[in-house]
Every structure is written in structure tokens, then in C-alpha cells.
């Protein structure tokens, strides 16, 4: 027999469902940048922060990430494709190393590669590594495959130690002030996305920003 939904049952069902929906549905994606947090213009303006995609693009996607964060790595190829296809996007990957010394080392090597002119390549090579846990050897090998010796990148990082650590420290401060709870986190215009985010949502946020 098919379960008959009579009026009495509906009376009970409706509030039950709405209550749970209502309670959870308050926070729908995306969120807005909190009033006290640094504004979008400030987030995307630091000249020290390396940029992927089209540096002269009209819209910037800010991503807070860790080199060992599984969701950051999973979405990386899709992001790459999205940014490439659009052609007019700046992709700012802000380091928020939170998975220990190997993540620290990956950040140091990638930022150290900026002055060696191979940031994008090193960043992509480390993000493309397999496995949730990375080892020092894997990270160093990835850098090498991108044309940079880990030692050279670390020396380069060391030369600008103060400005790099200040940049990363600032990134982390921004992440907390924005109310980001971890990695990944995205900001496009006034839209804030906590956690893994479908490309479609980011694409909509980009379109909204372009419409003005």
C-alpha cells in the first residue's frame, strides 16, 4: 500500500520539516564579509602577494589554502581550468599553512620561487602531488620538476624572510578576521565562501561582481 499522506500527517510533517530546515537554512551560501574585517579592496591589493591567472584581470578570486588541505588540492585542477577558460581572472592563493612543518616548507619553497620567476610552476607542481600527507622529499621533488632546487628556493625565502613571514602572518590574520574557519576559503567581491565551494558558485559570484 502506498503511504497516504493525509491532512493530519501533513500537519505533523510540515512543522517538523520546516523547523529543521529553518534552523539550518539561516546561513546560506555565500556569506558576506563581516563589517569589521578587511575589505575586498584591501585583501587583493598587497603587491607582495603573488598572483596566478591573468595578473591584469578585472576580477580577483582570493583563496586561502594549505598545500596539504585535501579539499584545496581536489579543487585545484578545476580552479585552474576555470581561471584559464575565463581568461580575465586574477587568482590569489593566500598561504595559510596549518598542517605542520611540511606545509610550512611547501609555503617557503613556493614563495621563495617567486623571485626565481617560477612561483606558478612550483605552486602547481606541489598541488598536483598525490596523497593527503606530503613528505619533505615529495615537496622538494615537485619543486625540482618545476625547475627549482628546493635549496635555492629556501635561500631565496631566507633572504626576504621578514617580508614573507609578515605576508603570511597577515594572510592568517585576515582569514580569522573574515570569519574563515579553515581551508579552503574563498572571497570574491563581497561574497565569502567557507570551505570547499563548487566552481558554479564562484562563477556566479564573479558574474555578480562584473555586473556591478
Amino acid at each position, binding site marked *: 500500500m502506498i*503511504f*497516504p499522506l*493525509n491532512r*493530519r*500527517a*501533513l500537519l*505533523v*510533517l*510540515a512543522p*517538523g*520539516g520546516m*523547523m*529543521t*530546515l529553518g*534552523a*539550518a537554512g539561516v*546561513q*546560506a*551560501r555565500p*556569506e558576506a564579509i563581516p563589517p569589521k574585517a578587511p575589505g575586498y579592496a584591501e585583501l587583493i591589493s598587497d603587491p607582495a602577494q603573488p598572483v596566478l591567472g591573468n595578473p591584469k584581470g578585472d576580477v580577483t578570486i582570493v583563496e586561502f589554502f*594549505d598545500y596539504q588541505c*585535501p*579539499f584545496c588540492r*581536489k579543487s585545484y585542477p578545476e580552479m585552474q581550468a576555470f581561471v584559464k577558460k575565463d581568461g580575465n581572472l586574477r587568482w590569489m592563493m593566500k*598561504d*595559510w*599553512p*596549518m*598542517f*605542520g*612543518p611540511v606545509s*610550512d*616548507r611547501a609555503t*617557503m619553497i613556493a614563495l621563495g620561487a617567486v623571485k626565481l620567476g617560477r612561483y606558478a610552476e612550483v605552486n602547481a607542481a606541489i598541488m598536483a602531488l*598525490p*596523497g*593527503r*600527507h606530503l*613528505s*619533505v*622529499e615529495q615537496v622538494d621533488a615537485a619543486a625540482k620538476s618545476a625547475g627549482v632546487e628546493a635549496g635555492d628556493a*629556501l635561500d631565496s625565502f*631566507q633572504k626576504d624572510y*621578514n617580508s*614573507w*613571514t*609578515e605576508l603570511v*602572518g*597577515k594572510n*592568517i*590574520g585576515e582569514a*580569522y*578576521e573574515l570569519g574563515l*574557519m*579553515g*581551508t*579552503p576559503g574563498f572571497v570574491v567581491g563581497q561574497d565569502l565562501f*567557507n*570551505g*570547499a565551494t563548487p566552481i558554479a558558485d564562484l562563477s556566479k559570484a564573479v558574474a555578480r561582481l562584473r555586473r556591478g
Partner: protein
Amino acid sequence: MRQDMWGKAIAALILGLVFGTIGGAVLAAGRPLPAAEAFRMQLLSVDAQGARIGWTIAPGYYLYRDGFSATDDAGAALELHTDPGEVTQDPGFGSVEVYRDRAEVLLPGARGVVQVTAQGCQQDGICYPPVTETVTLPGTAPPEGIGAEGALAGNWLTVLAGYFGLGVLLAFTPCVLPMLPILLALLARQGETLRPARGAVLSGAYVLAMAVAFAAIGAVAGWSGRNLQLVLQSPWAIGAMAGLFAVLALPGLGLFEIALPSGLARVADRVQGPRGSVRGAVALGLGAALVVGPCLTAPLAGALLYIAQGGSVAFGAAALFALGLGQGAPLLLAGVFGAALLPRAGAWMGAVRPLVSFVFLALAVWLLSRVVPGTVTAALWAGLLLWGGGWLIRGTGRVRRGLGVLALLGAGAQVAGAVLPGVGGPLATATPEAAPGFGRVSTVDGLETALAAARGRPTLVYVTADWCESCRQIARTLWPDPAVGAALRGVTRIELDVTRADAGAEAALKRLSAFGPPTLLFFGPDGTERIASRRTGPVPVPDFLSAARALRPAGFAPDPSIQGVSE
């Protein structure tokens, strides 16, 4: 029939809840839970095996098995055991071992206060930075060897000896040095009848009284939980003590050719007794506790920590008594040998009484400088130097007149420093401005507001006071250091100023569970204090830097030479 209808209704309700919950979960993926709600930590048990700490994990979230760590009070890593977790094979990411619903760690042999760290993610959503929480393990003695301030856990004889040694070391810090002129003044007043034995008796009484006062401070603090240090640094107590020194100085003032009202002179005579008496020595020794009170933060904190963790009040007091004896030991030696070395009689005797007065007045001004504005202090110093210089210059002998001219010049410099903005006289003490980069608060409300505003950023809270000698040392060594500056970049700095030592200051100290200045407290961006990094007393630069490491992962101060941990 009725029954059937109810059955359907209940089934419908369940269905509704299920669909509602699923829909809710889908929407809720829009905003992950805060880490503290996703992973709820609790202490499960403490027994012979060790402490068990558990986490309740919200549905749809997990903790990494390799994401746990624990440290003791001093920041040293603790042994930690976990059971096998759920191994998931991800085609792209290999094998990962996680816990869902609940996780448990065992810390064998953990004692006292521990900090446990866990790290996890929301399924397909977000990965959190490590979450660190503080747990006090009940019924366990504090771990041994947490530095001088917490050394009360060991063998009692060792502990007392340790506090004695600490006292000896303290005796040579700037804040205890004024004890020496007080004692010498006391001995000098004895005049020609001073023999080594008499010197020993007088300085012994002085030192014993001081040690008893320390023990009393410790006992009262242990019983009441109140920090007497603050009470002792209140303007009333300081004013009273400065007044006592001023009165003691009065008899010598006769030589400044100022007529004293006879009543006052009698009071002064009664307080100090006829010729440096034991009674006077005891009074000065008790008062000395007030003079050196600001140096006591670190040892007092240690003793109180011990008492708070279930130790006996008497033993805490005994430790501070030993501290006082240690501080007094060099003074006792000075008393005995000083008495032997002083010439028996001669022209110097005439100079003793005004010198004693000068020392006592200088002590009074020095004490007052803790509670009065800097300009007033400068004026008092100028007045004192003018007075002393005037007396010296009227005497005979080149040395004496030279010293007089120097004193007068010093007085002039003090006046110039007080008048010209930004110069500051040579003896200017109070620093009215907050340390560089620090926002200053002085009440519990101000502190709460500042801490709330600092949330999301790593934060340093620095408890200080104008009357705190060790704080001046910190101001000289720590803040100007470039390495310290680098470690504090991007760190919110809050200065809690307890100079006024009022109820607001006490409430603020209580909020931080801090004993007094100087105390340095480090807060992570999550607003939790990294207790292993708390520092009390003067802190050397390397120690500060290692404590400041706890501000990671908020800041980023990696060591490029570290090879990392290969999995």
C-alpha cells in the same frame, strides 16, 4: 482504525524529521560549524594508567589520528596513545586514518595542567587549523621542574634550599639593593658602640623580620586568594611607608639647621629607639617587604600555585620565609663585616646622621615615585639634592664641596628635565606612556573589550606597573630587541597597567589568573591562552622568543632549516 491513524501520523512525523534533517544538512554545508562545536573535548578519566581525553565529533566531521598532540605546563611534548581509527582509501589522496563520532587519547603519566591539540576536517568541506585546549587533571600533583616559580613539588628540603638560593639571587637585583643602605643607615646610627656582634644582632633582626613579612604575605595570599602585593603597592601603603622613612630621617635634619617641632622629633626617636635598636631593625625589616614587594611576583606566583593545587599554606609560607632569609643573607654579612670595618670614632661620625637622613629621604622619594606623577618625583629629587648639596657645600674639604656642587648640578638637571618636555631628569622613573605598539588598559572591562577586539589575531597581554622594577628591565631589554619586534609583528599587544593597584586592577588580574607584574600571556587567534608560554618575572630575550612561538600557527615563523616530518 484510530490506532492505524496514529501510526501513520507518527510515521509521517519521522519521515518529516528525516527529510527535514537531510535538507537541513545540505543547506548547513553552507557554513561549517565552528571548530569548538564540531569537536567537543572532555576529560574522561584520570587513573593509574593516565588521563583519558575524549572528543565528541559532530556528524559529518572527522579528526585525524595523526593530528593529536599534548604538552605539559612547560610546553614539553607528552607521550600520547591513540587507538586505530577508520582508514579510508581515497583514489587521489591515498590512505587517511580518521575518527568519526568520537575519539579518545590516553596520556600516560600526565599530571597537572596539560594542553591537548586535535586537528580535523568537515567531510568534503573544510579543514580546521589545530584546536588547542587546556585541561586541568584533578587529583594529580603538578609536574616537577616547572622552573623556579613552580619548584614546590619536589623534596621539601630541596625546595626550601631552592627558594633560599632564589632569594640570594634576588638580593642583587636593582629592586632589592635599596635594602643595603637601609641596613647601613641602621648600623651607622649605632655609632661608636657598634661591634660585629651588635651588627649581627641588628642585621639579624632586620633580616628575620623581612623573612617573616614575606611568609605572612604568602600565607595571607594562600588563605584569601588575594594578592597582597597589590595591597602593598596601593598609594596608601606606599604613602605610609614613605612617611615612616621621612619621620626616621627627621632627627638627622637638625644638622640642616632646621628646627623640628619637638613633637615630631619625639615620634621619630620613639620609632627608631635610642641608637639603632632591635625594635627599629624589626620595624625596618617589616617595612622592607613593602620596598621589595614588586620583586616578589615570580616566587609568590610559584608558592601560590603550589598552595592552589592543594599544597599546604604553611609550606608555601615557609618557602617564602626561606626566600626572605636568602635575600637577607648578603645583608647579614654586610652587617657583621660592615661593623668590623667601620672606623671606631672620628670626624666621620658627624657626617653620619645627615647621611642617614639623606638615605631615608631618598628611599621615601623612591617609594613615592611609584604612586605620584613623574613631575612630582622629579621635583622631590631636585629638592632633596638641593638640600643635600647645600649642606655639603657649606662644609670644608675639597671632596665634600665637590660632591656638593655635583648634587646641586644634579638638582638643576632634575628641574630642567621636569620643565623641558621630553627630556626627563636623570632620576625620572615613571613612564607614563604604554610600551611601543601596546594598547593600554587598566580595568577588567577594558581588558575584556581589548581581548574581544583582538579575537582572530594572536595577542600578547603584558601585565605591568610603574612600581614594577622587573618591568623596567623588560622595557629596556625586550621591546627594543629587533628579534622580539619581528616575533611580535602582526600580534595585537595589550598592556594591562596595574599601577593604581585598585579593585579594577585586581579584578583584571583575577580574570587572567595572573599574580602581578610582570606577567606575559600569549593568546592564540582562537582567544585561548597558550598557558605553556606564560612568563612571570623578568624574561630574557631567548626565553621570550621561545614563548612567542606559541603564537603560531597564527603568525608564521618557520625555521627553514627544519626538515619537517616525513610520513
